[in-house]
């Protein structure tokens, strides 16, 4: 619902020529093991604060018309989306770069944690994200 609302809010606007989207999707494998599902935990009040800081930083670096971040929490299954980052700007350079920046910063700073349930029946916390660059 939030995505629909935000997208509609760009309708009728004529100043943006580029929209860059990134969608992160859950794999059914990680570090050589088959993963059955994943539970995402977060720190609600800090998540919002941190995402706002990240978007503010991106807005200082690039001229952005609008941004949208949606991140799932709770139980997630393979092939389901985990995260969406969308950026609207006048030109593609700013849109691509800002989308990448927001996604990388989110991965390093936003307080989310993944716990994987393996097909073997074991659970394990993901200890660190893979490098993006």
């Amino acid at each position, binding site marked *: 619902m939030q995505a629909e609302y935000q997208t509609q809010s760009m309708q009728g606007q004529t100043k943006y020529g580029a929209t860059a989207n990134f969608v*992160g999707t859950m794999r059914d494998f990680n570090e050589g093991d088959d993963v059955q599902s994943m539970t*995402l*935990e*977060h*720190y609600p*009040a*800090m998540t919002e*604060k*941190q995402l706002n800081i990240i978007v503010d930083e991106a807005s200082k670096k690039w001229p952005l018309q609008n941004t949208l971040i949606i*991140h799932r929490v709770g139980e997630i299954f393979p092939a389901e989306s*985990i*995260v969406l980052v969308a950026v609207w700007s006048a030109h593609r350079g700013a849109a691509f770069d800002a989308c990448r920046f927001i*996604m990388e910063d*989110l*991965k*390093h*700073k*936003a*307080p*989310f*944690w*993944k*716990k994987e349930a393996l097909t073997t029946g074991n659970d394990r*916390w*993901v*200890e*660190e*994200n893979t490098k993006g660059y």
Partner: protein
Amino acid sequence: MSIKVLYFASLREEIGRGGDVVDISTDQSSHSLSVEQLWVNSTGQTHFPDNLLVAVNQEYTNPQALLNDGDEVAFFPPVTGG
């Protein structure tokens, strides 16, 4: 002074609870309490782990930061969202 402490993810499971309320008497609080001292006080552990992250009032800070009455302090492992 009273400090609300939160633990997340693998740390919450290791410690066995989601949080604590740490009350420090007025005498003790005449000396400023740091994040690192709070960690020792609330968890009983003597060492502040290298990869442990800390936020005061939902913003990242460091173990040397000083605390005020009513602060919310969160300890957690490296984040793995996205």
